[in-house]
């Protein structure tokens, strides 16, 4: 029986990474091999490492974890000739609010990711990899362990893979609850058995990552895109998207839509078409109020800003980000004070405490928002929230401080009316 999918696929999708989702036993090695699996690995084995990296560069694939850094460029930073062992680390810490795609890539097609990792190994001369999976995804850790065991048993991992003379060992590593560990250097500290605190950069992980060795660190979806790129060519993948924004990506849509789900579309897909046609529009005929385009850390968009193509550069142009692909749709009834407060409760909880602007900033923002929501808001709070947030920007080791500040700045600027209405209501209550 084909595995029941979490949501019905849409006929408007372009399914490249998710093309095996829904096939009978899609998670098995046999199904993977019968559907083009490991063709890319065999092809990559015949290529020079520089050619593999060049192909990834040509694909215009950009990191799917959130930052959107060009993947081929990241691969080229790993010093292949270093005498130190080189490691591959997969970021499967998926924790950005609104994001739930890596779950599906691991659950339905674990071998696609394994093949991507192996190709990464060929490219940077690495023979060992670790998949860092958030602790809440225990069933997926066990699922990946079974997939890895299956790959070992059939010669797709371990010594002399498929008779090519290439060796690679792959392991899972469980997290234990920490958003911050999705930040790559904090993840590396965590994998080394420490508190997940971000590191000073440079050196970047490509040069000194896990155990001070050169490390290639990418998101689950990024590695999962590699087999298609090598198999069909970087140019074919690039052509699916827009210039400098190659390929397709999995978007997770949630909130006020009729068909929430995870859907794969090309980069540059029109946002309103996505919301209205793929995600089924807003329930109850209500109006769109705002969209969080790619996870809670992205600056929020007002309804009239959403008529744009979804690629990294178009979102950057209007001051937001495509982020991790976690799109949250808000209808006209949404209380923006409560929404901003919930975002800040999250960041205050998850701040690792290493940098003072983040630790103190998120805590004070939470307190001010909480007071506002409790009916104790003051007119000057709106400006204070914005000012405090702006003072956090760029003043922390990692992006968590920015991630907390950016949505707050955009909410108080774009939805100041919501805050004013609350103040008016509070005054009325006092008068009564």
């Amino acid at each position, binding site marked *: 029986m084909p595995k029941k999918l*979490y*949501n019905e696929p849409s006929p408007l999708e372009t399914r490249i990474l998710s093309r095996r989702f829904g096939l009978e036993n899609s998670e098995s090695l046999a199904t993977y091999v019968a559907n083009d699996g490991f063709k890319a690995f065999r092809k990559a084995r015949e290529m020079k490492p520089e050619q593999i990296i060049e192909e990834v560069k040509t694909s215009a694939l950009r990191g799917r974890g959130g930052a959107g850094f060009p993947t081929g460029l990241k691969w080229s930073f790993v010093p292949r000739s270093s005498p130190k*062992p080189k490691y591959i680390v997969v970021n499967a810490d*998926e*924790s*950005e*609010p*609104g*994001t*739930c795609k*890596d*779950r599906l890539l691991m659950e339905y097609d674990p071998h696609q990711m394994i093949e991507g990792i192996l190709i990464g190994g060929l490219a940077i001369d690495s023979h060992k990899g*670790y998949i860092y999976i*958030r*602790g*809440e*995804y*225990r*069933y997926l850790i066990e699922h990946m362990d079974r997939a890895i065991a299956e790959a070992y048993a059939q010669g797709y991992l371990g010594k002399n893979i498929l008779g090519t003379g290439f060796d690679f*060992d792959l*392991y899972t*590593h*469980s*997290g*234990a*609850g*920490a*958003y911050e560990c999705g930040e790559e250097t904090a993840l590396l500290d*965590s*994998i*080394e*058995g*420490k*508190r*997940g605190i971000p590191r000073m950069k440079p050196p970047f992980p490509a040069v000194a990552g896990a*155990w001070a*060795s050169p490390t290639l660190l990418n998101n689950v979806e990024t590695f999962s895109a590699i087999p298609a790129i090598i198999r069909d060519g970087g140019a074919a993948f690039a052509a699916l998207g827009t210039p400098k924004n190659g390929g397709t990506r999995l978007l*997770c*849509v*949630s*909130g*006020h839509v009729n068909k*929430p*789900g*995870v859907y794969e579309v090309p980069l540059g897909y029109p946002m309103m078409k996505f919301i209205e046609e793929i995600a089924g529009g807003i329930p109850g005929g209500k109006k769109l109020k705002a969209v*969080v385009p790619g996870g*809670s850390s992205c600056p929020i968009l007002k309804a009239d800003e959403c008529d744009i193509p979804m690629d990294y550069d178009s979102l950057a142009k209007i001051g937001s980000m495509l982020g991790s692909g*976690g799109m*949250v749709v*808000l209808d006209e009834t*949404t209380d923006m004070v*409560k*929404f901003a407060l*919930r*975002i800040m409760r*999250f960041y205050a*909880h*998850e701040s*690792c405490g290493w940098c003072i602007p983040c630790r103190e900033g998120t805590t004070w923002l939470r307190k001010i928002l909480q007071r506002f929501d409790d009916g104790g808001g003051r007119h000057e709070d709106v400006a204070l929230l914005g000012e405090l947030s702006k003072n956090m920007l760029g003043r922390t080791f990692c992006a968590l401080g920015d991630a907390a500040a950016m949505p707050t700045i955009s909410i108080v600027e774009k939805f100041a009316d919501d805050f004013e209405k609350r103040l008016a209501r509070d005054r009325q209550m006092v008068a009564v």
Partner: protein
Amino acid sequence: MTFSPRLEEKFAKMLTIYPEGRQRSAIVPMLIYAQDEVGSITPELIDEVARRCGVSSLQVDEVVGYYSMLHRKPMGKYHVQVCTNISCLLVGGMELYEQACKKLGIGHKQVTADGQISLEEVECMGACSWAPAVEINYDFHHHVTPEKLDQLIDGLRKAQ
């Protein structure tokens, strides 16, 4: 301190997968798997993990304090985690959490008097497109309605 044979086997392998001399890398996975068996992160467990990973107890202790899934006090046999982060918030996650508080008569990170069920308001668990979501121990429940939450909790009470 020893664990079940299954866990002992897992831990023995775990210590071999990291580079030579880097065995402390096993601290976080070892703690979370051991917690499932022991019930909480006890001082004895900290000492044991420290011994196995070749570090001081203090080095393990400071790690414990960082990770939200590690608990120094025992949680219930069934740990009910209700997400109220943005995607769940928009479709009733907060109301579900309040319902769970009322039904169980406990609050955030508290345990019922019989020690069977505990409750936690959690951050995003990666179930956004199938919100609102609840995770009981390691089992995800998606599209949770007030009725479904009642049934889930009643089911846990019967299972005791």
